[in-house]
């Protein structure tokens, strides 16, 4: 029997086929992302949800309506495309004229809602879908047994990819699309209804994702979370293939699917991460300019430094006193949790609010630090203060490495890259021995601080965390208002200008990223000690999304925003706990509402009100003074 590197060919062929099928799905999804990005200037985080919807609707159609695979193959993509069309018309179009990162956040929120709803009704368990009778069975090709359905699914997927490519590159409609991607205004002056074109493009992209989902139903288990994991991989594919060309998406998708499939044969543990590693290499090797399709330098920060920056000292003292008294009124454990999350959010806000870098992978630092601290305390018996420092160090090193890679891209690409890199850390945590996989590290002793103070008591733990939090918060406050912080803000507001003033912007960004990851690590370490637990839910991309959520709710780019956001969200989780898993749906909905109507967040909005009142008062004073000044 023939072998390659000691692996029999008979094992390789099926993996190659599965790799190709996966690659074709990647291609269909990244192609859809690319055309949607071209027309809407939005990274469609909903894409994974639409893929899942495609699979789920196929399953439901059979289960509840008795509609088989073949009608579903046509009906499901159409239905889901219509759903996408409605979402686009009703919600997504409202964010076209603002920073594209809000499009990412909006679709992220909507994806949370859709996934959450399905999890509530159907649970997380996968559901099998039978292969259609006409395609069951397999053919023996001599060198391998070819399952009919898989061969057919691959053929259809590739045909659809080529068909889409032909439509876009060779037809009049495609020419309109390509032209509108470059200059929608000019295409509009040709008498073409560009808004309709945008909606149709979105529906087309969504339909492709749903079709991939329908095709995937008989191959994979149908489950509510099948889309979100896939989407992160597709983001990496998009970063590698660039979003400028449809052909590039198809080739990159297929090639990466094959690479992934072959990695599974030769070094299985690496197969989840190989695409992300390739992405990192591509980022290093290719200068950013080669990516066509607009990398946006625009910052995510709302830049609303109003109000909160000029908080009266008396308010600070009041807040500090409130913090000291709080555990006598509220369950201390809840307060510690909120403080840890608040610190995590502050670290994220330092980056997004003051440097304009939207990291969608901050949970990697938070979660990794939690694991390291938990492991050191539990397995090595290290004292808590050293374990916290070790956790921070690991997070800081990791952050420096990620930052070094990610700052080479801006805006949406930055967000996708941080998300993809964080996913590699997630897979590491899933597979490494010391993290104990799905179980996590449990029963971590809190130990004695400096060998003296027993942290086992929640009250003591609270004051320890509170002291650390105040120190970290003060540090962040100082950073923001230092000359270093001013350079960061200048970079956020106008990077080109900062560069032309002679600042080495990349170095500043990297330092900010490292600092931010260090503080995120501190939050993670504290959290691990408090909960005596480090699990995958600290490190998965939902955790990264959650920190974005609560910072947005509180107010991005305001000093107090993340803190307020953290307390609001933690309180909500606590008091709504009776609603069970609906909480994530509610959070997604709040998130969506924030992006659409309330982008300044709570603190930002209060700042605006205060500013307005101040202006009114000034105006009133100005009016009374007028007789003296005038004439």
């Amino acid at each position: 029997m023939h072998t390659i590197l000691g692996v029999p060919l008979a094992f390789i062929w099926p993996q190659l086929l599965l790799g190709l099928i996966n690659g074709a799905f990647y291609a269909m999804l990244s192609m859809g992302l690319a055309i949607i990005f071209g027309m809407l200037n939005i990274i469609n985080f909903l894409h994974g949800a639409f893929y899942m919807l495609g699979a789920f609707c196929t399953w439901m159609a059979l289960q509840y309506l008795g509609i088989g695979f073949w009608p579903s193959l046509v009906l499901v993509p159409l239905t889901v495309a219509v759903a996408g069309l409605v979402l686009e018309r009703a919600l997504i179009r409202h964010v076209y004229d603002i920073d594209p990162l809000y499009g990412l956040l909006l679709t992220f929120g909507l994806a949370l809602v859709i996934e959450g709803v399905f999890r509530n009704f159907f649970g997380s368990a996968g559901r099998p879908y039978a292969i259609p009778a006409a395609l069951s069975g397999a053919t023996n090709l001599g060198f391998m047994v070819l399952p009919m359905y898989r061969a057919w699914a691959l053929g259809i997927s590739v045909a659809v990819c080529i068909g889409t490519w032909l439509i876009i590159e060779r037809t009049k409609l495609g020419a309109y699309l390509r032209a509108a991607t470059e200059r929608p205004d000019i295409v509009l002056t040709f008498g073409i209804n560009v808004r309709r074109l945008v909606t149709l493009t979105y529906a087309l992209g969504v339909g492709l994702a749903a079709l991939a989902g329908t095709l995937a139903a008989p191959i994979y288990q149908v489950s509510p979370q099948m889309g979100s994991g896939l989407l992160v991989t597709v983001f990496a594919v998009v970063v590698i293939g660039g979003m400028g060309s449809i052909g590039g998406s198809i080739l990159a998708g297929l090639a990466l699917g094959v690479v992934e499939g072959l990695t599974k044969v030769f070094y299985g543990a690496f197969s989840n991460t190989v695409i992300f590693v390739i992405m990192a290499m591509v980022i290093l090797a290719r200068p950013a300019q080669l990516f066509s399709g607009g990398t946006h330098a625009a910052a995510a920060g709302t830049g609303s430094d109003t109000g909160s920056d000029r908080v009266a000292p008396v308010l600070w003292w009041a807040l500090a006193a409130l913090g000291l008294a709080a555990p006598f009124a509220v369950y201390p454990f809840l307060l510690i949790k909120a403080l840890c999350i608040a610190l995590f959010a502050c670290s994220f806000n330092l980056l997004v609010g003051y440097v304009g870098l939207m990291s969608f992978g901050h949970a990697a630092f938070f979660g990794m630090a939690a694991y390291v601290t938990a492991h050191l305390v539990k397995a090595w018996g290290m004292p808590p203060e050293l374990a916290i420092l070790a956790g921070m160090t690991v997070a800081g090193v990791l952050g420096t490495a990620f930052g070094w890679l990610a700052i080479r891209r801006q805006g949406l690409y930055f967000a996708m890259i941080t998300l993809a890199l964080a996913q590699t850390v997630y897979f590491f945590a899933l597979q490494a021995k010391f993290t104990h996989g799905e179980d996590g590290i449990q029963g971590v002793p809190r130990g004695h601080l400096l060998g003296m103070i027993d942290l086992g008591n929640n009250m003591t733990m609270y004051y320890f965390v509170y002291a650390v939090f105040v120190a970290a918060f003060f540090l962040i406050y100082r950073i923001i208002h230092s000359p270093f912080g001013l350079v960061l803000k200048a970079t956020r507001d106008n990077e080109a200008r900062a560069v032309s003033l002679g600042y080495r912007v990349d170095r500043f960004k990297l330092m900010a990223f490292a600092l931010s990851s260090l503080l995120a690590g501190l939050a993670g370490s504290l959290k691990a000690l408090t909960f005596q637990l480090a699990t995958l839910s600290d490190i998965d991309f939902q955790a990264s999304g959650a920190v974005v959520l609560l910072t947005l709710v509180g107010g991005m780019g305001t000093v107090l925003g993340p803190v307020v956001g953290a307390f609001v969200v933690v309180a909500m989780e606590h008091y709504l706990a009776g609603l069970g898993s609906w909480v994530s749906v509610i959070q997604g909905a709040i998130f969506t509402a924030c992006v659409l109507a309330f982008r300044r967040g709570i603190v930002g909005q209060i700042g605006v009100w205060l500013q307005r009142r101040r202006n009114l008062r000034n105006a009133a004073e100005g009016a009374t003074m007028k007789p003296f000044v005038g004439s």
Partner: protein
Amino acid sequence: MPEANPGDALLDVRDLHAYYGASHVLQGIDFSVRRGEVVTLLGRNGAGKTTILRSVIGLVRRRTGTIRVDGAETIGLTADRIARLGLAYCPDERAIFSNLTVAENLELPPVLRPGGLSLAEIYELFPNLKERLRSGGNRLSGGEQQMLAIGRILRTGATILLLDEPTEGLAPIIIEEIGAVLDKLKQRGFTILLVEQNFAFASRYADRHYIVEDGRIVEMLNNADLLRDFDRIKKFLSV
């Protein structure tokens, strides 16, 4: 008497105001263009000439006043609807689509009304384009881009052409060619509103001129006035 009577104007603009964000860019513009006329908007950089064209075609969203095209009010319409009334716009940056070939660029604007030029007629006007049909839109020289940008809006059946500085940054010999094209288009009955900073070019090919200054029209001149008051007018155009 050079002032056009609004009654027989094909394009008639009254009290046009336009805004970009907080800035009030056009502050009450009045002018009109008769059927078959070539009219220029002269003025220095930042005077508001381009904004006038963009307001007429509907690309400036915040605009008030009256813009009538052949009697029909367009102030509340979007650009695609305005285009269907027979207007076509050629921006100063030419906006050739780099993802499209020359042929695709040329054939992209749909034919909205009868009476447009055929491809053969366009090639006759711009022989250079015919040799570059398969090139990418980003591989053209400045002159070729300008020819393509004008050529592609001639097929659509539009009768009013809004041309923004078609001579900007081009060699004198190319400017000459563009001028010849303008003459031919005029003979064919096109109505042309031209933004220009090139004084000599404007006086050679246009019938009337409006001077734009700080978002207002300060003067209307015919060719004879323009030559007679050359020195006085020049101060409006140079910094």
